[in-house]
Structures are given as structure tokens and as C-alpha cells.
């Protein structure tokens, strides 16, 4: 395993710029996720690291080796494609053995390694099947085994879970993460799914318009976003425009003053108030500082989501679903409620940091 260093990497397609001066270091054994909406440059970045696309400028280094001009087939990265890209005319075992074959590894030794890799993904019994005879989840595991068996310097995952159904996705997410940690794989993961990024990554890179918005641990990005875009992209968030009133309050554009401990929570040029829905407490009855009316109650099973209107602002509140006999369980639209939160919970951020 190697570390990955990306230095002011830039890719232009004609007049449009897909990746704009990206700097990133992935330490050995670390899993870093590139997260962003489609067209943010995350996949282009991954393709440049794999060697499928030549960068317009900038450098890519594996450890201290500059691989910027090295063709893809000499880079020794192991990639799992969104489509899995299994060779349809080869069996699962042949797919897994392909990379070893390309490295000139012969008969018995190759077979041993293929069997080992298939065992790692619990597919030993299906090595003789063609990809079309395997389920989506099994195909995905063949793709994993195929990428790992070559002992790659770098493990690259391009939206690896997007073709799986929701239940399987949650399982495989945990499985890949466990494997990655056990084998100490230096991994670059590309995803547009924030849950995937938050659960799997050691560090997240939120990208937009070819540039990095923020880099940090999932917790840092979730709790202390740099700007409103990041706050909104890594999770649900109440974002209200306005300005700081004083040390203990933020005035929204509609004139509502919201309690916040501004000193530690304020970023430069802050003009938005960001607060996660689960940090808001809701009480029946209009007997608090912030009173409003319920607009909607959405039952989500373990959680319940309330939309509460205070003046011209609507707050999203997410709470553990109350027991059937608790007072909250009886809440319905038009009911009066009061909201409250810890003054340290909100963040004051700029709408954009770019």
C-alpha cells in the first residue's frame, strides 16, 4: 500500500473546467471519500488518479513516485467500477485471475491467489460462474476480489454501491469498510451518497464545481461545516439567511431572532444560520421562547419529522418517535408547539466559501 498525493490537479474539457487545482493527501491505510453532486469533478479526479484521463496540469504521486504520466496499466491501482465492469466472457475466477495473468503469474500460484481472493469475499463456491449467472451483490464481490487480488498500491471505488438495493447497500458498506481496515487499504471512494460517505470514510472531501469546499472527518463536516453548501450536503439542515444580531442571537431576514452562542460558532462573513433537525427539541404548547404551529408530521418509523412554522420561517425537527402514550405522539397539524435548542448547537456560516 502506498499513500496518495494530489497536487494542484486540474482538468479542462475545452472551455469548461472539471477539476480546478485540487490538493489532497490520502495517508497509507486511510479511506478518503470524495463527495459531491454530479458534475462536481469527483469522478474526473478518480479517473486521473487511475490514469484513464491525463490531467491538464498538476501532479499525482503514489508515495514519492510521480505517476502523472504513467499509463493506467502500469499504475497498479485496484478499482471497483460503478458498473462492476466484469468481463462477461470470463468466469468469476477468470475475472479475478485476469490481473495476475497480466502480471505474468503462472498456473498454480495464480490459482491459489484466486481461490484466496474468492474466499475473502465468500464466493469460493461460485468461481466457475459467468457474471450474468451471479446476482448484483455477488458480481460486486467478484469486482472487489478482482481489484484486491493484485495487491494494489491504491484501492479506488467509483460509486461501488449505487447498483445495489437499499438493504444490501447497508450490509456491503459495512463489509467493505471492515475489509479496508483489516487489510489497511489506502482507499479513494467516490460517491454522491452522503450516508455512504459518512459511514465509510476516515475523512471526507466535499467538492463542488471542480473545487474542494471542505476536508475533514465525517464528524467535523457534520458538526462544523465551513459553509451552507457543506452543511446542506452532508446532512439535513435548517439553513436560514440573515445576520448576527449580538453575542447571543442571529436575526433572520424575516426578523426572527434565534438564540445562538455566536463567539465560538461563527465563521467569517457568516450570513446563514445552520442547525441540524435532530438538535431541536419540541414541546407541545406555546409556552417557550420560540412558539409556532405544526405544519406537518411525518412518521418515519424510528424517527418522526415535524415541520414547524414560526413567523415566516419553517423549521424541520427530527425526533425519536415518541411512545404512543407520550404527549408528543398526539401532535397534529395546527397544534401549538415551542422549540428549543442548546445555544452551542447552531453554526453561523457564509452561504458560500468559494
Amino acid at each position, binding site marked *: 500500500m502506498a499513500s496518495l498525493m494530489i497536487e494542484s490537479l486540474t482538468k479542462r474539457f475545452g472551455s469548461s473546467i472539471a477539476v480546478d487545482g485540487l490538493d489532497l493527501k490520502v495517508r497509507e491505510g486511510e479511506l478518503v471519500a470524495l463527495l459531491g453532486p454530479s458534475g462536481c469533478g469527483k469522478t474526473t479526479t478518480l479517473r486521473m488518479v487511475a490514469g484513464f484521463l491525463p490531467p491538464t496540469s498538476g501532479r499525482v504521486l503514489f508515495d514519492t513516485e510521480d505517476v502523472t504520466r504513467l499509463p493506467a496499466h502500469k499504475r497498479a491501482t485496484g478499482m471497483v467500477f460503478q458498473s462492476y465492469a466484469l*468481463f462477461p466472457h470470463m468466469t468469476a475466477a477468470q475475472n479475478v485471475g485476469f490481473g495476475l495473468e497480466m502480471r505474468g503469474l503462472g498456473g498454480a500460484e495464480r490459482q491459489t491467489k484466486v481461490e484466496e481472493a474468492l474466499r475473502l469475499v465468500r464466493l469460493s463456491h461460485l468461481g466457475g460462474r459467468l457474471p450474468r449467472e451471479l446476482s448484483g451483490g455477488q458480481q460486486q464481490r467478484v469486482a472487489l476480489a478482482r481489484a484486491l487480488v493484485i495487491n494494489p498500491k491504491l484501492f479506488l471505488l467509483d460509486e461501488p454501491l449505487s447498483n445495489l438495493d437499499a438493504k444490501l447497500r447497508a450490509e456491503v458498506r459495512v463489509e467493505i469498510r471492515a475489509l479496508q481496515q483489516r487489510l489497511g487499504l489506502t482507499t479513494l471512494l467516490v460517491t454522491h451518497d452522503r450516508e455512504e460517505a459518512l459511514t465509510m470514510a476516515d475523512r471526507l472531501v466535499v467538492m463542488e464545481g471542480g473545487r474542494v469546499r471542505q476536508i475533514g472527518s465525517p464528524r467535523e463536516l457534520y458538526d462544523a461545516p465551513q459553509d451552507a453548501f457543506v452543511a446542506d450536503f452532508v446532512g439535513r439542515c435548517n439553513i436560514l439567511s440573515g445576520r448576527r444580531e449580538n453575542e447571543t442571537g442571529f436575526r433572520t431576514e424575516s426578523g426572527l431572532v434565534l438564540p445562538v452562542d455566536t463567539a465560538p460558532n461563527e465563521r467569517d462573513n457568516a450570513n446563514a444560520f445552520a442547525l441540524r433537525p435532530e438538535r431541536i427539541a419540541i414541546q407541545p404548547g406555546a409556552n417557550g421562547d420560540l412558539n409556532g404551529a405544526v405544519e406537518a408530521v411525518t412518521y418515519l418509523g424510528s424517527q418522526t419529522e415535524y415541520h414547524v412554522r414560526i413567523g415566516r420561517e419553517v423549521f424541520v425537527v427530527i425526533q425519536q418517535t415518541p411512545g404512543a402514550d407520550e404527549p408528543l405522539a398526539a401532535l397534529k397539524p395546527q397544534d401549538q408547539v415551542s422549540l428549543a435548542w442548546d445555544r452551542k448547537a447552531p453554526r453561523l456560516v457564509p452561504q458560500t466559501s468559494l
Partner: protein
Amino acid sequence: MTLAEGMRGKGGASAKAASPGTALLVLPACLLVLGLLIGPMLLMFRISLNQFSPTQLMIEAFSFGNYARAAADPYYQEIILTTLGMALLCTALTLVIAFPAAYWLGRLQSRWKSLVVIATLFPLLVGNVVRSAGWMALFTREGLINTALLKAHLIGEPLTLMYTPKAVVFGIIAVVLPYMILTIASVIESIPRDLEDAAANLGASGFSQFWRVILPLSAPGVAAGSILVFVLCMNTYATAVLLGGPRFKMMAPAIFDQFVRGNNWPMGATLAFMLLAVTMSFTIFGSIAFARRYRAR
């Protein structure tokens, strides 16, 4: 992947069984084939069993004597071997020339793609006779190529280009190339690009990507294109006559000679069926061998 599989993959609804009444839709086509292909062929086969006399022309008979005579005659043996050799050579050369172009076309992502496809088809708009006549102007002793080479003092005396098997090979390839290119390109188009990236990612050089991934996966297109081209080559007429000259003989012109010049319908019909038999057996054996190599894993 067959067309049917592709359609099933895209929309389940399209896979629903056709109602019995829709079977009638194939009736006109079937009638046409029965009346204008199968019927005449049966008639031809009957004629091939008749006998020929220079004075009475055709005599009713029922014998395979014509087949035995043609098969034993060194003259016809040579024509059959020439035809088969030309067809195999032209098919192989066409495949080699067409594959890179087909790959490029199949991978082309441009809004001009349909124009490129039309340009590929364009040679087919020019009839074989017109095209070959044009080549005659190019290839004769006083033709453009010889004149240019002589003027440039690259050669001392004119080259013999016309009326050689080489001229016929070039002529045939120019005719059949579009069929091969378009057949293979449509299969290449259906091979996901990711597969090449995946192969590269696993350490495959450009050549290995081609040899281990692209070529095996385009096998159905290679097979279909080769069969199509082989059959066209076996039945070459105008190109063989116009560029090969009077002494170069292939089957189709020989059959024409028997019917029209010799008035020998029984022998013409016999040769026609021999051509059909050789073409079909090579096509079928070729397909089986190919299927064994690529489809059985």
C-alpha cells in the same frame, strides 16, 4: 448478446408474447421467398439433372452426371478453387482492414456519427460496374497510376495492374468493406467502455485489452460480418469480369457463360448448385468452429 436479449433487458413489456394473429404479418415475405427463391431453385435443381446436347440443347433426363463431370473436370476444379481462394483471402483481408475502422466508428462519440455511418455506406451507392469501370481508367497501361509513375520517373515502363488477381482482390475488398465495418462496429458499440478501463486497471496493455477483451466480445460481429462478406465474395461477378479480364475465371461468370454463351442450362445449373454447396458448407463449418472457440467457455 442477441438482439432479443438486449430488448428483454431494456423493457420487460416488449417481451410479451405476440398474439397468434400477428403471425400473419410474415406471410407476404414468406410468399415472396417461396415464390421467387425456393421455387426457381427447385426448378434449377431439376434442370441440373437434365442433359445437354449441342444440337438439341436440353434433353430431359434424371442423372447426377453433370455433377460428376464438373467435379472431375480440372477446368471447373480450378475455377472452384480460385473462387474459394479469392473469397477466403478477401474475407481475411477485409476483416483486418475493417476492424480498426469498425472499432473507431463503434467508439465514436460525436454528433457527426450518423454522417460517418452514411459515409461508410456511400460506396454502396455506386454500382459495381460503374466502380470497376472507374478502376479500369485508373489501372490500365495508359491509366492514371501508370502515367503518374512514368512522369515521375519512378518506373521505366508501365506496370501490369489490370487483369490480374490482385486487381480483383482490391476491387472486391472495396465493395465489401462497408458491410464488414458496419457489422463489427454495431457490436463494438455494445461493449461497455468500462471493460477496457477495467482491463487497463488490471495491468493490460493496449494490445492485451484488444486481444483478451475487445476481440472475444466482438466475436459475434466478426462472425456475422465474415459470413456476409464471404458469401458476397463467392458470388462476385462484375468485379471479377471487369478487373480480372477474360482469362481470370470465378464461379459466377462461369455460370453466366454456361447459360448465355454456351446455352448449356444443365451445366450452368449444376455449377450454380456446386457454388451454393461450397459456400454453404464453408459458412456452416466456419460458424461451428467459431462458436466452439468463442461461445463455449
